[in-house]
C-alpha cells in the first residue's frame, strides 16, 4: 500500500509540473539544434574565411555570438529551468503552482531568445561577452526567470518534507543568484552606470558566475538526484556535499577576474580572482570524491543505464574541467594560454562535457516519467552518447594542444603573426569535425525526444537499456 501511495504522490507531483517542464525541455532541444548549426558555420569560417563571406549577418563575429547566445540562453538556460521545475516539486513534495504563468514564461523566453539572436545577426549586439542581448531583451528574460523563481520558492514554502536535500540547496540558491547576477550586470553595463575598466570587471564577474552560480548548481543538483536514484543507494557522504555547497558559494563568486590576468585592471582584483580559482579545488574535490565513492561497486550499471552514463561522464568532466580551470588561472599558465583557443576548449569542456552531458542525463531520466513513454531506440541513445563523448573529447584535445602551441608561438616575437595563424589551422579543422560529431549526436537526441513527446514511442513498461542489466554477481536481472 505504501508503495502505491508513493507512486500516486509522484504522479501528482510530476503532473503538476508536466506542461511547463516539457515546454522548457523541448524548446531547449530546438535551441540546441539552432546553436549547433550556428556553431558549425562559425567553426568552418575560422579555417575557411571565404565560406559564406558575402553578407554581414553571416560574418564570423556575428555567427559566433549568435551561437553562444542561442546555446547559453536557449539550450542551457531552458534545459536548466526545465530540470529545476521538475526537481523542485519532487524534492519539496509540494505540487507546482502557477503552471499557466510558467507556460507563458517559457513561450516568452523562446520569443526573447529568438529576438536576441536576430538582434545579434542584424548588428544590434552589445559586444559585451555573455551579455550581448540588448537591454530590453535581458529585462524580459529577467521577468521570465522571476516567474520561475517565484514558482520554485512558492513550492519550497509549501514543502511537505522536514529535510532539505542537497539538490534543493543548489536549486534554491540559483533562484537567488541568477536574478542578482543578471540584473546587476545588465543594468550596470547596459544601463550606462559603468564604463571603462569597471565595466570590464563587472562583465567577468557576471560571465564567470553565470557558469558557477547558475548552470553548475543546477547540474550538480541533477547529479545528486539522478545518481542515487539510478543506483539505488544514498550519496556516500551527505555532510561532504554540504561542505561542497558552501565552498562553491564562497569561492566561485570571486573567481571571475582571472579572465583579466595581465590586463589593465587593479592587481588586487586579479590576485583575488586567482586565489578564489585555486580554492575551487575544494568544492570540486568533494563532488568528485562523493561521486566516485557512491558509484563504487556499481560501475557495471554504466553499461545499461543511459541516464547514469551521461551523468557520470558529466561528473568526471566537472572534475577535469574545474581542476584545469584552477591551474589555468595562475599567472604563468595564463601568460601562455590566455587569448588562445585553449580557453575555448576549456569553456566547451565545461559547458558541454560537464553541463550539457548532465542535462542529457537528466532528460533520459525525466522524459519517460513525464510523457509516459519509453525511449524509442537504444541505438539512437548509443549514437547520441558516443558522438557526444567522442566529439567533445576531440574538440577538447584539439583546441587544448592547438592553444598551447598558439600561446607558445605568440610568446616568441621572432615568429611572425601569420605563421602563428597558420599553425592553428589544422587544430581548427579538427574542431570542425568534432563539431560535426556533436551535431550528429544532437540530431539523434532530437529524434528520440520528438518521438517521446509526439507519442510515437512505446508506452511505459520496461525501460530502454543500452545493455541487458547485469547484477553485481554477474547474472542477468
Amino acid at each position, binding site marked *: 500500500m505504501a508503495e502505491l501511495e508513493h507512486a500516486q504522490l509522484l504522479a501528482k507531483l510530476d503532473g503538476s509540473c508536466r506542461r511547463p517542464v516539457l515546454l522548457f525541455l523541448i524548446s531547449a532541444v530546438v535551441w540546441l539544434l539552432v546553436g549547433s548549426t550556428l556553431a558549425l558555420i562559425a567553426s568552418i*569560417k*575560422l*579555417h575557411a*574565411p571565404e565560406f559564406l563571406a*558575402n*553578407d554581414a549577418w553571416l*560574418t*564570423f*563575429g*556575428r555567427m*559566433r555570438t549568435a551561437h553562444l547566445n542561442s546555446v547559453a540562453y536557449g539550450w542551457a538556460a531552458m534545459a536548466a529551468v526545465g530540470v529545476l521545475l521538475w526537481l523542485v516539486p519532487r524534492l519539496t513534495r509540494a505540487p507546482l503552482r502557477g503552471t499557466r504563468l510558467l507556460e507563458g514564461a517559457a513561450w516568452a523566453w523562446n520569443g526573447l531568445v529568438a529576438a536576441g539572436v536576430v538582434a545579434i545577426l542584424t*548588428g544590434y549586439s*552589445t*559586444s559585451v*561577452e555573455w551579455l550581448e542581448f540588448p537591454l530590453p531583451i535581458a529585462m524580459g528574460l529577467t521577468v521570465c526567470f522571476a516567474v520561475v523563481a517565484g514558482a520554485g520558492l512558492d513550492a*519550497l514554502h509549501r*514543502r511537505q518534507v522536514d529535510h*532539505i536535500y542537497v539538490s534543493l540547496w543548489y536549486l*534554491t*540558491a540559483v533562484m*537567488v543568484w541568477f536574478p*542578482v547576477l543578471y540584473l546587476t550586470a545588465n543594468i*550596470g553595463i547596459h544601463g550606462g552606470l*559603468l*564604463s*571603462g*575598466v*569597471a*565595466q*570590464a*570587471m*563587472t562583465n567577468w*564577474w557576471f560571465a564567470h*558566475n553565470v557558469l558557477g552560480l547558475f548552470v553548475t548548481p543546477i547540474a550538480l543538483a541533477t547529479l545528486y538526484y539522478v545518481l542515487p536514484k539510478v543506483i539505488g543507494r544514498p550519496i556516500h557522504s551527505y555532510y561532504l556535499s554540504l561542505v561542497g555547497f*558552501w565552498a562553491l*558559494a*564562497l569561492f566561485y*563568486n*570571486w573567481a*571571475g577576474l582571472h*579572465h*583579466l590576468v*595581465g*590586463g*589593465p*585592471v*587593479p592587481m588586487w*582584483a586579479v590576485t583575488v580572482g586567482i586565489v578564489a580559482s585555486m580554492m575551487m579545488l575544494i568544492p570540486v574535490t568533494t563532488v568528485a570524491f562523493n561521486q566516485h565513492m557512491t558509484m563504487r561497486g556499481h560501475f557495471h550499471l554504466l553499461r545499461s543505464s543511459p541516464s547514469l552514463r551521461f551523468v557520470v561522464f558529466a561528473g568526471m568532466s566537472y572534475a577535469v574541467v574545474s581542476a584545469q580551470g584552477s591551474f589555468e588561472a595562475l*599567472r604563468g599558465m595564463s*601568460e601562455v594560454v*590566455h*587569448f588562445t583557443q585553449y*580557453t*575555448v576548449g576549456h569553456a566547451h569542456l565545461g559547458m558541454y562535457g560537464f553541463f550539457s552531458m548532465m542535462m542529457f542525463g537528466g532528460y533520459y531520466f525525466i522524459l519517460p516519467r513525464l510523457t509516459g513513454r519509453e525511449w524509442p531506440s537504444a541505438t539512437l541513445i548509443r549514437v547520441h552518447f558516443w558522438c557526444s563523448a567522442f566529439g567533445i573529447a576531440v574538440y577538447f584535445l584539439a583546441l587544448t594542444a592547438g592553444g598551447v602551441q598558439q600561446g607558445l608561438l*605568440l610568446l616568441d616575437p621572432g615568429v611572425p*603573426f*601569420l605563421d602563428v*595563424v597558420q599553425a*592553428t*589551422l589544422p587544430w581548427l579543422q579538427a574542431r570542425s569535425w568534432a563539431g560535426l560529431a556533436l551535431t550528429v549526436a544532437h540530431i539523434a537526441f532530437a529524434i528520440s525526444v520528438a518521438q517521446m513527446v509526439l507519442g510515437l514511442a512505446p508506452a511505459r513498461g520496461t525501460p530502454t537499456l543500452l545493455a541487458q542489466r547485469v547484477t553485481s554477481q554477474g547474472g542477468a536481472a
Partner: protein
Amino acid sequence: MIEPRTLLLGALATVCFSLTGYVLVPALGVETTPITLENGRAYPPVLSEQAAQGREVYRDLGCVYCHSQQVRPETFGADLDRGWGRRGSLPVDYVGQQPPLLGTMRTGPDLADIGTRQPSETWHLLHLYDPQLTSPGSNMPPFRFLFDEVEGHDERALTLPEGTVANGVSVVPTARASALVAYLQALQQPPDVTGSSDE
C-alpha cells in the same frame, strides 16, 4: 537542520559579497574622468564623430571576438617585442569607453595601438576588402559587404590587383568602411601616459 531562510540569506550574502568587491568597489574606485597630460592635452581624447561611428561598426560586426585591445605589461608576454604597443595598457586608456573592447581572444593581433602601427588608410581598406591582399594566409574573413561596386571610374576606388573585379567596375568604400578605418586609425595608446590620476 538548516532552514530555507538561512539558506536563502546565505546565498544572497555570498553573491552580494562578491558584487561589492567586483562591481561596487571598482565602480567607485576606478578612475572615470580623463587626465591632463604634461603637454596640457586631455587623455584619452574624444573620438571624432566618424571614428565614433566606426567604433559602432566594430561593435556590431563583432571584431572584439578575434582582436583584443589590451597591451600586456613589459614583464608579461611578448606584446611590446611584437610591436603591439609602446607600453602596457593602463586603466586610464579605457576611461569613458562603453563598452571597453578589451577582448579575450587573439585569433588576430591586438589592436590597442593599431593606429600607430599601421596608420595607412589605404592599407586598412584593402585589408578589410580582402585580408589576403595585405596579409596572405590570414584567417580573417573578407568584409566585401562594406564596399560598393560601381560602374566606371571613381576617385575613391581601391587599387586592386587585376582580375579581382570585372573590367570597368570600381570598388568604393561605404561610409561604414571609412568610419571603421577612421576608428582603427584613432586606436592609439601613447607612451607619455605613464600613470593614472589615482597614483
